[in-house]
């Protein structure tokens, strides 16, 4: 079959204007506009964002600020009216075709009839052509093998990294919400994606589980420093995880401010108690307050 599953947004493929320089080391969002049919206010208005390879970036803002829309646009799941998105020089559709986009949605989105192991292996069962191409590319241009990275290619060590070895043969229905989300994270990391998109992955979990999963995610990311776009409602979460926090404002959805988080890495439980973290949290909160008050009023854009 030549036609594709969920037709990637037409804008995502076609709107790549020739003047945009394809940057192999950045995710570049330029002048992104999106208005949902039947609404008067733009969901995204002139959004500019540049994310260097290997950084962890959080998107935060009041509801309706378009952070999830932006994430879906980067994933090629949603079209847009104007502007461009390039992922290390490729369009979102090309990036998906090459299987270099990992997605962790809010709901774990596991297949209930498969075991945990089969769910984690699922990305390797579909679109095998991309895997073959990747293997070929790696044969021609061998990347230095590192044990830390190779572990992500092996399902058993991957399950071990998220402490799911004992649950490997269980079905998702038998797992708690936190464990299910760990499976979804393992599935996305197992893809060894160039960009990992996480859409409020912990928002349905209780506070303790959320805290534990943040630390686990930090550990995983420390081993595979892929580029992450992380949508969240939690200031604590954004600051704990990220190198940069992108604060967005609503009506229309815009980038309000980009705040650098210069906490040392790797971050463990000790860093999370440091006064420095609280200072940055306060900055983000103040910025959010500003974004909230900005509301529909025009704001000076601060692009990263």
């Amino acid at each position, binding site marked *: *079959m030549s*036609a*594709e*599953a*969920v037709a*990637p947004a037409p804008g995502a493929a076609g709107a790549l204007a020739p003047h945009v320089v394809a940057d192999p080391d950045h995710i570049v969002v330029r002048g992104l506009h999106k208005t949902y049919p039947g609404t008067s206010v733009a969901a995204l208005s002139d959004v500019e964002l540049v994310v260097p390879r290997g950084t962890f970036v959080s998107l935060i803002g009041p509801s309706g600020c378009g952070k999830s829309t932006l994430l*879906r646009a980067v*994933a*090629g*799941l949603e079209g847009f009216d104007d502007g461009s998105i390039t992922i290390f020089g490729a369009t979102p559709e090309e990036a*998906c*075709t090459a*299987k270099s*986009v*990992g*997605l962790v*949605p*809010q*709901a774990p*989105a*596991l*297949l*209930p*009839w498969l075991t945990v192991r089969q769910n984690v292996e*699922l*990305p390797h*069962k*579909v*679109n095998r052509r*991309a895997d073959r191409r990747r293997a070929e590319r790696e044969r021609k241009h061998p990347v230095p093998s590192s044990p830390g990275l190779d572990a992500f290619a092996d399902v058993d060590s991957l399950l071990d990294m998220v402490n799911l070895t004992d649950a490997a043969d269980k*079905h*998702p*229905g038998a797992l708690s919400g936190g464990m299910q989300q760990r499976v979804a994270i393992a*599935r996305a990391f197992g*893809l060894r994606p160039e960009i990992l*998109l996480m859409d409020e992955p912990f928002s349905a979990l209780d506070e303790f589980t959320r805290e534990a999963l943040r630390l686990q995610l930090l550990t995983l990311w420390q081993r595979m420093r892929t580029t992450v776009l992380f949508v969240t409602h939690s200031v604590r979460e954004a600051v704990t995880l990220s190198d940069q926090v992108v604060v967005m404002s609503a009506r229309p959805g815009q980038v309000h401010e980009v705040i650098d988080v210069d906490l040392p890495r790797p971050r463990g439980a000790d860093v999370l108690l440091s006064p420095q973290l609280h200072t940055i949290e306060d900055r983000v909160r103040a910025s959010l307050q500003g974004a909230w008050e900005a509301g529909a009023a025009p704001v000076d854009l601060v692009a990263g």
Partner: protein
Amino acid sequence: MAAHGTSTAQDGTSAASPHVYTASAAHGHAVTAVTDTTPAGGTPVVPAPAEQPGPALSAQTTSPAGRVSATSRGRSRFPRSLRPSTWLPTTVSVVVVALAWSWVASENKYLLPPLSAVGDLLVEDSALFASNAWATLQIAIVGLGIGFGAAFVLAVVMSEIGVLRRAIMPLAIVLNVTPVVALAPALVVAFGFGMTPKVIVTAIITFFPVLINVTTGLRSVPVPVLHVFSTLHASRLEVLLRLRMPSALPFTLAALRVVLPLSIVGAVVAEFVAPGSSSGLGTMIKTSAANSQLAQLYAAIAWLAAMGVVMLLLITVIEKRLLFWHESQQGATS
């Protein structure tokens, strides 16, 4: 053995229960008494009851084999299916209906035949009924196979190609609201008195529920999962086979649950309308009625009912095996 089992239980807690369980396999009755005395785990067991012959003996004399294993498993003294609260209401209602039936039959033998007459016939002519049931069952199964297969394939095609859905769905709905019985004589004219018109009637009757359910099932895929497949750039075929088809399985089996008994209804109705062959329970019912052989008529009906029950049991077993992961099977233990 019994002494060993008791001393393990004496160690204290519910952790000892696996030992009790194994012991019960070998020495069921003695241990029965032990577990009976430990309703809430944690309390040390008094060894005395195990040595008292009383309760052990009574268990031995009054309970069937199933009871012992159930006792060692749970708190209740009966497995669920043997508990009076489960079987008593059914038994009472069956007895009441049988009594009412017998009373009516004794008052007027043209309303209902005596149950004993029906029972005698079922035993004496069992071969006759079996061969007629087989004839009807063949029609039902072949018709169901064709109706189910056609509906499933069409549902898949329609879910993939929107134009075809808009083209086919209205026709399918018209076919559904058309009384198929009315179609049967025309089918007899077209295909003669053989098996063909009957199979077609059955296929048409079973077609629509499958079509609707499978179509709904193929579309009942959560959006986040579709998004994950989409970012993986999975092909339509991969989405269909790995995502949509398994998601549709609960809906497909629910359709089968409706359609399996319906296939027998279809076959019998077809035999009513399109007689010709001398076999089949439907034909049998029709001739019995013409000759006022009420006992034979109700014996045939009993066979049809039994076939329906067996089919429902079959589909329940299949659902348990295939849908262990689905919500509908949660809490459906034992």
